[in-house]
């Protein structure tokens, strides 16, 4: 009995090997749109990304106001921010027209640059907040979450860009960021920025990212909510 089984197995294997067409190759899971599994459309992707950026921004807003409330009682004091944000070297459109003048690729690139620039500083921020006694665990958790969110957002935007490229909406000028693009949050004077300054800068940059994504979306997929 076992002998016959063995023989059958050998035969099958031989058949498979012999068949030139039956090669195992990786195939995408959802190759066909509606017939297969549900493939998220670009609009869906955009929506997800925008929601993610909105959450990230609200987190940064909360942390910033917490900081202001507990550590900087005097509002509107002169000399609140002396130092530039480290991302100020990145050219970002500061108005609607400027943003609309930018091409999609550039806009996407700006977004990605911003997000990339914040990867390490956010990690540092979380570290320093966790070490300080002043913050409660809730705040340092928020910082950690913020860092994760920025990372995820970047990945998401990269996926969107990829999708756009696939769909032919984007030219190939959008390239991945080189390692040289990563910047360290070092101010002009060379000192590391304080936590408050980091939060202030990140709040602003997350707002920028959210705004740019919305513009991009309404430019590319203007069906709803635009």
């Amino acid at each position, binding site marked *: 009995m076992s002998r016959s089984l063995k023989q059958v197995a050998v035969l099958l294997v031989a058949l498979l090997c012999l068949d030139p067409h039956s090669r195992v190759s990786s195939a995408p899971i959802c190759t066909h749109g509606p017939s297969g599994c549900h493939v998220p459309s670009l609009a869906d992707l955009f929506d997800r990304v925008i929601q993610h950026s909105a959450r990230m921004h609200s987190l940064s807003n909360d942390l910033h106001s917490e900081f202001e409330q507990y550590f900087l009682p005097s509002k*509107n004091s*002169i000399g609140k921010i002396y130092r530039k944000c480290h991302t100020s070297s990145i050219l970002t459109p500061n*108005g609607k027209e400027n943003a609309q003048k930018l091409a999609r690729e550039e806009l996407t690139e700006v977004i990605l640059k911003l997000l990339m620039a914040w990867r390490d500083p956010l990690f540092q921020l979380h570290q320093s907040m966790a070490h300080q006694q002043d913050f409660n665990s809730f705040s340092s958790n928020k910082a950690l979450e913020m860092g994760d969110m920025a990372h995820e957002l970047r990945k998401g935007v990269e996926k969107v860009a990829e999708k756009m490229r696939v769909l032919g909406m984007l030219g190939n000028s959008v390239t991945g960021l080189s390692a040289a693009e990563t910047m360290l949050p070092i101010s002009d004077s060379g000192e590391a920025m304080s936590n408050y300054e980091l939060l202030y800068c990140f709040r*602003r940059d997350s707002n920028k990212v959210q705004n740019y994504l*919305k513009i991009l979306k309404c*430019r590319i997929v203007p069906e709803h909510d*635009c």
Partner: protein
Amino acid sequence: MRNSGAVLILSFIAKLISQAAGVSAPGKPRLTSCRSPEKETFTCWWEPGDDGGLPTTYALYYHLENSETIYECPDYRTAGDNSCFFNKNDTSLWVNYNITVVATNALGKNISDPVEVDVAYIVQPNTPENVTAVVVDEDQGPFVRVSWEKPRTADTRSGWITLQYQLRVKQKKDKEWEEYDAGMQKYYNVFSLHPDKEFMVQVRCKPDHGFWSEWTQTTYVKMPDYIPRERSLWIMITIFSVFIVLILTWTLNVKRNSVKLCLLPPVPGPKIKGFDKQLLKSGKSEEVFNSLVIQGFPPTIDYDDLLVEYLEVYDNEEQELVLDSKDLSEDCMKSKSPSDCDSGRGSCDSRTLLLEKCMVGREGSRSDQHQYSQHGETSWASTESSECQGLEPGSPEFSDGRVKTWPVVFSSPQPHHHYQVEAVKPVYHSVPEILNHSSPHAMPANYQNLQHQDIPQQEGRFGKPACRHSQSYTHGLDTPAPGVSPSRSLEYVEVQRINPENMLLLRPLSDQNREPEGSDYAGEDYSKVKELTSNNILLLQRDTSYQCADGYSQAGQCTTQQPPHPCKPVIYQSHSGMPQEGMRVMGNGYVDTTVLMPSY
């Protein structure tokens, strides 16, 4: 040097003059708010300070963050007075503006506090436009559909701004608004509005990070008059109630009887013993009423029932005479000795047959007390000397000066003096007689009071006088009281009744204990009190004949008087020192004071 000095002096004088004239440098202006309606332009307003009485000009200066270049406000007019309008070219987002206002007049200038502004965070859109509210009629009922448009200036199309809307509704008379969040859509359906009422509707909007706009102008909408047809609900309610009614009816039906009982409790019919309704119906009233007559009513008083008392008499070492009778009731109450009444040897509060009066404050006669225990001779006087006069023969021991219940019970043979039975035949009213069978010589200690002679030869006839009537004792010390040998067993004598002659009829309680000893106890059951003499002597009458034992000293009356009447008066006398007050029973009998009261 001189010039500067002159200038100083001049300025000083000018100041003085100006102050005298009421003019001065302007007060400090204050920036109140900066707002951007569409995130492309913004306006700042300030509040002028005191102008110092002179025409003052205001100027707004700003510089961007990390830049030292100071610019002046480009437009002072577009936004009205005391405002500065920044157009698109001058507006940069995500950049801090450092703004100050300077007030200048002829006498000086004043600079406001600087304000940092980031335009991205000061967005307050205009109000939504074209708010319309229409009533839409549907199957479930009419509702109101409110729709509006975005503010004209806000550019949501390019995604530069995202607005979310909010509306509120109320009736005219209501105080509170009902608020609804509409999200980013530009319409909203309001349900559950009251019919035939007018409602006010307002809408406002807000950017995702910014301030709420103002509410729009009120839009009015009137709901039509309709009856809410919630059919399904009513159907369900009807079915449910019908179901419940059915269940109730069925339950009531099942429990018909108990319900009837509950609601209409039966009226109790007349219940008269011996009353025959049928007779009444038949109309023979005489018979009916005759049947109501109860034979033997009113009940004759049977004093036996009323005056039953049981003396618990027992003997103790001290030969206390314990009387569980009421004689001591008064005594006890009046006596000052503490422990007697609660000695447990008898109830003190019962009215005994033996009437006595407590002599309050007869302490003096205490000296008369003798040890009854010893001799038993002590006269009654001594007993009387105690507060509670007592009674009896077998007198209570007055060691403490009170009458104690004298133990009639002879529980153990005691080397006490025997009483001469013949002489003294105490009649114990309600005195249980405990006969000591053990030895005929067992002398009841109780009787010792009566006599101090041992009568060894006495047969145990104590406690039960041959003549069962109250005997008269002479308490004389020398009176050899006849030892009364207790006969056999306990016997209780009780007062049976009081006959019309105010006589106390006594009878022993238990006849069965009586040994047929012949003439001694021949039929003598009770004795009744005949009369009360003036010296408070209770005369007990003997109803039946008896045989007198020999040896009665003064009890020889029994023999002498026997013939004339069947009753033998027994006289209790206290010879010595017997107080005249009250009534004392000198013998063994107890007279219930309550019974004898009328005789006084």
